[in-house]
C-alpha cells in the first residue's frame, strides 16, 4: 500500500470538486491539493448536464425573485439563509466561469444570453448551447491545469474514509489500472462524488453515479439528509432514460398525450395560452410534470413504445433553424438513438430519475459534523433544493458552493495539525483487506447484475413518482434482504488490474446502503411534499408535523435510524405552491418594480 500525505484531498473531480480545488489553490498557494477520481475528470457526470446554470442578470429580475422561486420550488423545505447566500453569489460565479473561457451563448451585442427554465419567474438561466454541463466541466478541468499545486490521481477508486478520534484523516483508494492501494492522508477531505440515481432502473445518470461518497460518509456516522426527495426529470428517452433538456421546453417545446392534447393544463399548470409563459404549463416544476405523466398513464392517455409508456415532446414548431442553433445536441440525440428528426416528428419522452436532492448533511460552509470532512455538490444536502430542485440551480450550486468548500477546507487544512500517520496506516491496511476480501474464490454465490437489477426494480416500484406505504415497506424489506444476499456475491473476475466487476461490487454495496436511506426516509414521511408524493391518505403537505428535514443515520446491523431536524425559515413562510394562472394570481411580487439583481 502506498502512502501519500497531502494537505487536502478532494474525492470526485466533477464540477464541484474541480471548483473546490481551484478555490483552495487560489486561497492558499502553499497547500498541496489532491483530486482523486475514479474516472478522468472530463468523464464526470457534470458533463451530461444540458440546460443551463442560474444567475440573476436581467434588470427586471432580482435576488428576491430567485430566492422565492427556489424556496417555492423546494416546497419550503429549503434552509432559507443558505438560499440567500446561494442566489447572491450565482451571477458572480457564472461571470468567473466566463472569464475562464466558458463559451456561454451570447446575444447579438456580445452579452451573455439567458433563457427561461422550469419554475423560474424570470429568465435567468445562462446556457452554453444545450451542453452547459459539458462546457462548464471542460472549462473547470482545463482551468485547474493552471495551478501547479493541484495534483490528481486519475482513475483511482475510493473505498473508505479513514476516521480516527472523531476526525476524518483521509481516504483509501484503489489504483484501477493495477489494483494497488494508496492511503491518502490529508488534513481536510472534501467529498464531491455526485448523486445516486443509478439505484433506480430508468435514470438519466451515467454508470458512475452510484452514491459512493454518500455511502462512505454515511458509514462513518455522518447523517444523510432528505434522501426521500428524488427528482424525476419529465422528459427522458424511454428505456435508456437519456435526458432531453428542460431547455427544449424553455425554447417553446410542448408536451402532448396520445390525443395531441397539452395535458398539463388538467393539473393546475394552465391555461395553455398565452404560450410560452414562465412557471406555467411545460415550464412548471419537474415534480409536477412527472406526476402529471403518471396520471396520464393511469388514464390510458399515453403512447405505447417498445420501452414503455411515453408522451410526446413536440418541437416541430420551433423550426429546423432554431433547433440546430439552440438545441443541437437534442437533435443529435433524437437522430442517433431514435432515428427521429425533431423538426419533423415529436419525440417520445417519459420521466426518469435524474437528481438526488438529498445527501450528506452539511452546514452553510459545506462542513459535515465530522471534523475534517466536507461535502459539496449533488452528494451533499446544504439546503438549497429542499423537496424539489429547480433546473439550472444545480450547475450553479457546483460553482457557488465549490468555492465555499475549497476555502473552508483550506482554512481547516491550515489550522489542523497532521494526523498520526502510523496509526492511520494500520487502519488503512484493514481497509485494503476488507476491499480485497470481496474477490472470493468460492463459487455458488449470485451474480452482481441479479442483485443490482432487483434493487433497481424495487426502488422504481416502491419509491417512484407516487408512493404508497405498503410498497415502500416492501422495498425496505427487499433492500434488507439484498444486503444479506450481497454477502454471498459471486465475482467472476479475480484479477487485480482493471477489475471493473470488483469495483462494480463495491459500488453495489454503496448503492444498497444509499437506497435504504432513501426508502426508509420515504416510508417515514407521512405527507406529500415536492418530489415525495404519496397517494395513500397522505396526499397533502403537512407543515404542522413535517416541516422538517429527515435525517438517516447508518446502523451496521439493520435499517437506518430516522430522525428529524427543523428547517431554517427566515422570511418566507410556507405558502401555497402554485403555478400557471393560479400562481400568477397568488404572486405577491406581481406589481413590484424591478430590482437590479446584481
Amino acid at each position, binding site marked *: 500500500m502506498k502512502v501519500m500525505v497531502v494537505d487536502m484531498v478532494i474525492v470526485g473531480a466533477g464540477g464541484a470538486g474541480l471548483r473546490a480545488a481551484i478555490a483552495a489553490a487560489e486561497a492558499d498557494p502553499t497547500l498541496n491539493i489532491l483530486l482523486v477520481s475514479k474516472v478522468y475528470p472530463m468523464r464526470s457526470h457534470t458533463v451530461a448536464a444540458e440546460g443551463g446554470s442560474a444567475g440573476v442578470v436581467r434588470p427586471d429580475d432580482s435576488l428576491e425573485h430567485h430566492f422565492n422561486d427556489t424556496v417555492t420550488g423546494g416546497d419550503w423545505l429549503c434552509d432559507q439563509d443558505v438560499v440567500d447566500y446561494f442566489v447572491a453569489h450565482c451571477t*458572480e460565479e457564472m*461571470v468567473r466561469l466566463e472569464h475562464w473561457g466558458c463559451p456561454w*451563448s*451570447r446575444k447579438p451585442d456580445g452579452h451573455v444570453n439567458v433563457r427561461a427554465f422550469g419554475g423560474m419567474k424570470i429568465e435567468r438561466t445562462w446556457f452554453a448551447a444545450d451542453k452547459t454541463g459539458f462546457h462548464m466541466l471542460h472549462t473547470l478541468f482545463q482551468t485547474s491545469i493552471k495551478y501547479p499545486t493541484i495534483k490528481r490521481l486519475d482513475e483511482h477508486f475510493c473505498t473508505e474514509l479513514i476516521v480516527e478520534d472523531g476526525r476524518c484523516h483521509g481516504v483509501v483508494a484503489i489504483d484501477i489500472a493495477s489494483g494497488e492501494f494508496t492511503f491518502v492522508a490529508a488534513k481536510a477531505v472534501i467529498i464531491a462524488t455526485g448523486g445516486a440515481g443509478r439505484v433506480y432502473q430508468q435514470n438519466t445518470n*451515467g454508470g458512475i453515479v452510484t452514491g459512493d461518497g454518500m455511502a462512505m460518509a454515511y458509514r462513518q456516522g455522518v447523517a444523510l439528509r432528505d434522501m426521500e426527495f428524488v427528482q424525476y426529470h419529465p422528459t427522458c428517452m424511454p428505456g435508456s432514460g437519456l435526458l432531453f433538456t428542460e431547455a427544449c421546453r424553455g425554447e417553446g417545446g410542448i408536451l402532448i398525450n396520445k390525443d395531441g392534447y397539452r395535458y398539463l393544463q388538467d393539473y393546475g399548470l394552465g391555461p395553455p395560452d398565452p404560450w410560452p409563459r414562465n412557471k406555467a404549463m411545460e415550464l412548471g416544476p419537474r415534480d409536477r410534470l412527472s406526476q402529471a405523466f403518471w396520471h396520464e398513464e393511469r388514464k390510458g392517455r399515453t403512447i405505447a413504445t417498445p420501452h414503455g409508456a411515453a408522451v410526446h415532446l413536440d418541437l416541430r414548431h420551433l423550426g429546423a433553424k432554431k433547433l440546430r442553433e439552440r438545441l443541437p445536441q437534442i437533435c443529435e440525440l433524437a437522430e442517433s438513438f431514435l432515428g427521429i428528426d425533431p423538426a419533423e416528428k415529436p419525440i417520445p419522452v417519459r420521466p426518469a430519475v435524474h437528481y438526488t436532492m438529498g445527501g450528506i448533511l452539511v452546514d452553510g460552509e459545506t462542513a459535515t459534523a465530522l471534523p475534517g470532512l466536507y461535502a459539496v455538490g449533488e452528494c451533499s444536502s446544504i439546503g438549497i433544493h429542499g423537496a424539489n430542485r429547480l433546473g439550472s440551480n444545480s450547475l450553479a450550486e457546483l460553482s457557488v458552493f465549490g468555492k465555499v468548500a475549497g476555502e473552508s477546507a483550506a482554512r481547516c487544512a491550515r489550522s489542523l495539525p497532521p494526523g498520526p500517520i502510523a496509526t492511520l496506516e494500520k487502519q488503512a491496511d484493514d481497509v485494503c483487506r476488507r476491499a480485497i476480501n470481496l474477490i472470493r474464490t468460492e463459487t455458488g454465490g449470485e*451474480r452482481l447484475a441479479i442483485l443490482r437489477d432487483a434493487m433497481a426494480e424495487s426502488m422504481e416500484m416502491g419509491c417512484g413518482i407516487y408512493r404508497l406505504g405498503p410498497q415502500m415497506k416492501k422495498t425496505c424489506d427487499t433492500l434488507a434482504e439484498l444486503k444479506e444476499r450481497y454477502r454471498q456475491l459471486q465475482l467472476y*473476475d479475480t*484479477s487485480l488490474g482493471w*477489475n471493473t466487476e470488483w469495483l462494480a461490487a463495491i459500488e453495489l454495496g454503496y448503492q444498497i446502503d444509499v437506497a435504504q436511506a432513501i426508502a426508509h426516509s420515504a416510508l417515514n414521511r407521512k405527507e406529500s411534499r415536492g418530489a415525495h408524493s404519496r397517494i395513500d391518505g397522505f396526499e397533502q403537505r403537512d407543515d404542522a408535523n413535517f416541516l422538517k428535514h429527515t435525517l438517516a443515520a447508518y446502523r451496521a446491523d439493520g435499517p437506518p435510524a430516522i430522525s428529524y431536524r427543523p428547517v431554517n425559515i427566515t422570511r418566507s413562510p410556507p405558502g401555497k405552491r402554485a403555478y400557471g394562472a393560479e400562481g400568477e394570481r397568488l404572486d405577491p411580487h406581481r406589481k413590484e418594480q424591478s430590482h437590479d439583481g446584481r
Partner: protein
Amino acid sequence: MMDAKSIAEERLIVEVLRYRPEEDAAPVMESYEIPYIDGMSVLQALQYIKDYIDGTLSFRWSCRMAICGSCGMMIDGKPQLACQTILRAGDVRSLRVEPLKHFPIERDLVVTMSDFVSKVESIYPFIIPRSPRTPAEGEYLQTPAEMARFENFSDCINCMLCYAACPQFGENPNFLGPGVFALLQRYNGDSRDAGQNKRMELVHTENGAWSCTAVGHCSDVCPKHVDPANAVNQNKTNSALDFFLRFLPRRGQSERGV
C-alpha cells in the same frame, strides 16, 4: 407450448479482443452469443456480456449519450463510440469489437490514456487573458460571430477516436495529435485569449503540426463534428507565418490564424 418471443428472438455474435495481462501473453479474440434487441447499442451488447455471461470483460463507459467520451473502441474496424453505435434489425449478425487502435492495451477494451491527458495538459489549455477583468466588471463581450470562430473546437469530448484514425499518430506516438490540436485552436481562436505565442512553441516541433500529412481521416470519424484536421492544418500556416515573420517586432496581442 411455443413461446413466440423465443422463436423470433435473434442472436448476435460478438467477437471481442480480450487481454488479461495477469494471464495472457498477448491479446486473443473471444466470441460471445447474446440475444439481440432491435435498436440496442454496442455498449448495451457489451454490458449484457459482462452482466450475464462473462464478468471479466472490462471496458470504460459512463454517460451512454456520447458526451463523456469514455467508450471509444474499434467496431468492425472503425473507431466509434460504443454507446452511439446502434444495431438495427436485419443489418447485423455479428460484430467485431477491439480496443482503440494505436494505443497500448491495458486490459480488454481499455487503452492507456495517460499520454493523451499529458499532451492536453501541455498546451496551456486555458484562457491567458488578453486584458484583465474582475468578476464585478461583468463578462467579456464576445459576439456570436467571434464565438463561431472556435466553437466547434470546443465541442471535443476527448474520446480519442481521431487518434485511432490518424496513421501518423500510429507511426509517431509523440505527435500531439488531432484532438489536442483542436483544443489548442479552441483557445487560439478565442477572442478573449492572448496565449497564441506561448502555444506556438509546441506547434513548431516535429511532434507538432508538422507530423500531420493532411490525411484528414480524423475529421471523418469525429462524433462531434469538431473538424480536428482543420485545427492541425490551420496551424501549419500559422507556424510558417510565425517562422517567417519572427524577424518583425512582435505585435504582442495580435491575433493569429485570422
